[in-house]
């Protein structure tokens, strides 16, 4: 086995980022003559295995065990460890999901192999793969190499690969026996809960005025609210504004908040960190105002202004209100 893609179930179906990880594997497999296996662990394995059986993979491994029927970091880390030790893949791919954030570092520790997280692309240079990831909160990129010749763990950032490019084929299924005892699982979890989603539904909003930490203090929020009402838009924010208690969490856009795709998204004092951008990059038009010309938000904006929101926003509102 050359590449192992570890699959994740989300509400009974295959997580979108698992599909993207498969595309990542397929993108290098043919060219380099590598085989790809996928691994379904514990939860909804029948559905997961059948959802990948029509893809161009060499094999699907299914690991069932009563201790794996709900997620635990200990159980899942032990399972992936045992598969790696038995099957010897040289690359292990997953999506950079909240679940893999929780247990993949443990796999890395248990097998003493490097885990390069949140990778956006990969390239072969000579005999090595070079992985690109962002550092400094998205402000810089870095090229990273593994120094371990046997096995390297990789997680891919959302949208690193496009699931539309998935190659179809057919894959056989094999079950894999896991040895696990209850004493090895040191956690127990309750059913997931959803925070009350009172307040606003931003997902259907057409116009969004969104504010970030650049607003500096709670008192300044009024200028953003005024702009929102001048254009009849909804008010949204990045996470730090919610963390500070300045707006309720129902306003938060991003990976841990709402996903929006309005006709217009105005980003005010928002740097454009990936966890924010995943929630709004589907917007049809993006206007960004930020005092830092190098802020990553300008990479996805249609219109950009390098300037001070405290100065420009009130003027803009005034001009609109005429």
């Amino acid at each position: 086995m050359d590449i192992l893609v570890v699959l994740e179930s989300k509400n009974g179906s295959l997580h979108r980022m698992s599909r993207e990880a498969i595309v990542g594997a397929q993108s290098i497999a043919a060219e380099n003559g590598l085989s790809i296996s996928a691994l379904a662990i514990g939860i909804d394995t029948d559905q997961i295995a059948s959802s990948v059986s029509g893809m161009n993979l060499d094999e699907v491994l299914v690991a069932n065990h009563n201790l794996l029927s709900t997620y635990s970091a200990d159980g899942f880390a032990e399972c992936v460890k045992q598969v790696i030790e038995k099957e010897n893949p040289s690359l292990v791919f997953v999506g950079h999901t909240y679940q893999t954030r929780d247990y993949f570092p443990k796999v890395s520790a248990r097998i003493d192999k490097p885990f390069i997280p949140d990778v956006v692309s990969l390239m072969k240079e000579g005999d090595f793969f070079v992985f690109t990831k962002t550092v400094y909160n998205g402000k810089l990129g870095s090229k990273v190499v593994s120094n371990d010749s046997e096995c390297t763990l990789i997680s891919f950032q959302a949208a690193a690969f496009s699931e539309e490019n998935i190659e179809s084929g057919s894959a056989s299924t094999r079950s894999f026996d896991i040895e696990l005892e209850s004493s090895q699982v040191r956690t127990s979890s309750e059913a997931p809960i959803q925070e009350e989603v009172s307040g606003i539904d931003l997902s259907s909003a057409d116009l969004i005025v969104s504010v970030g930490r650049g607003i500096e203090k709670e008192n300044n929020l009024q200028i953003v609210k005024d702009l929102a009402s001048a254009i009849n838009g909804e008010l949204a924010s990045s996470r730090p504004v919610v963390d500070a208690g300045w707006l309720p969490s129902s306003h938060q856009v991003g990976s841990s908040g709402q996903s929006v795709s309005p006709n217009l998204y105005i980003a005010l004092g928002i740097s454009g960190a990936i966890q924010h951008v995943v929630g709004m990059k589907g917007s049809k038009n993006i206007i960004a105002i930020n005092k830092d010309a190098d802020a990553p938000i300008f990479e996805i904006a249609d219109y950009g202004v390098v300037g001070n929101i405290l100065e420009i926003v009130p003027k803009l509102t005034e001009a609109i209100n005429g």
Partner: protein
Amino acid sequence: MKIGVLIKQVPGAESALPINDNETGIQEDQASFLMNESDSYALEEAQKIIESRGNGEVVAISLGPDRVQKIIREALAKGADRGIHLQTDAKGLADPLTLAKQFAKALESEQFDLIFSGLQSDDSGMGQTGIILGELLNMSTASLVVGTELSENTLKVKRELEAGWSQWVTLTLPASISIQSGLNQPRYPSLKGIMGAKKKELKILSESEFYIDGKKQSIQKVFVPKTNKKTEMIEGEPDTIVARLVDVLKNEVKVL
């Protein structure tokens, strides 16, 4: 109850990030450093737990060059009981597996009941160090923690899941958890705290006491990302900018 908190000093959000000559990192002497954001939430959570129990200690731990003593002092001024500085002049973004091994070597004898770390560092963004450390010290672990409830032999944590979901997970002790921002409001140091911090213990470990050889992954090159999107940059005096923005809203995006 003894809680170790890992705090990292990273370039602040407003810091310049000029790339160094061999393109392996930034020119540190031109960066301005702060305590990593999620680490300050981790520190606050540890302090709240110890304060509500009325006994125990919070130990602030940082690895890096001498400049990191600034954030250890800051933690002490906010009320942490003592500090440990793992002193090294190693440059660049660390390999989390080797880094965690160094922490494990240096901290094993402390026998912490709990280790708190930030969810991820704002510079390397590995999201691993605290979890690997927990694994190496045989502790149970959880990441993305947005709430804690400590009882005698267990720690119950609320873990953030995707898109507004979360889940309570009960961990056996000892445990190492990584903290997500927003679960509390980190305090500012008081004047009394700042004065008192000078008298608190700050233990300095030299590199030979925790050194681990090797690097499991390395950075070949750091670069400024290029963008493909054509962004119209609107320039000029504020009035000119505003006039063009109104024009865009009216005639291009057509929302006015």
